[in-house]
């Protein structure tokens, strides 16, 4: 998928663990892992809002659009 989730980068910058973030945004660590590994198909605005609030960042800091490279 061309949308890249840079949550782990932002978490490292803010020095926050997965468990702590999951607890603060009120989602399960399993779901946070799905989000971090890019397996998620969609993200709710409410979840994004909480992540941005906790990590003190913008949605663009977490989500990035990268065009897929075509195989030659």
């Amino acid at each position: 998928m061309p949308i890249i989730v840079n949550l782990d980068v932002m978490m490292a910058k803010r020095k926050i663990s997965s468990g702590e973030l999951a607890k603060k945004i009120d989602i399960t660590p399993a779901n946070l892992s799905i989000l971090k590994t890019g397996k998620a198909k969609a993200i709710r605005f409410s979840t994004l809002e909480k992540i941005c609030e906790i990590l003190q960042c913008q949605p663009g800091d977490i989500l990035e659009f990268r065009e897929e490279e075509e195989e030659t």
Partner: protein
Amino acid sequence: MWNKTKSLQLSIILVRVLFVFIPLLMLCVPVITEWYDAVYGEGIGLLGGRVALPLSICLYLAAVCGMVCLWALGRLLQNIRKDEVFTAANCKHLRVISWCCLLAAIPFGVFGIWRSLSFVVALAAAFFGLILRVLKNVFEKAVELKEENDYTI
């Protein structure tokens, strides 16, 4: 008190009973076809004469489809018991059951040459297969929606 668990258990038992009953019934096919020939010797159809052999072949082929169908039904019910309803495996089982019904319609359709009434059975089997095919399509869509929902964080 009757509940969903007991209903599911009853379905599983019925499938298992039929799974044993069909092979036993198949052992009696020569007797059944001979009896049919003796009692309904003069039936309506394009071809006349004895029908013991084509009826036997038809019943054996339908039994194979029936057995595969029951096996898939059993697997489907086992998955439902494990609370795994909208899964790709269940879609596969429904597809197998649907194809079995459609395939079972073929021997009955062919037997319709000897006995026209058999066309009704073939049509019923094909129609049932079609209904199951639509159900399978619904299941496939449900699996897709469930996956999307499960992966929405």
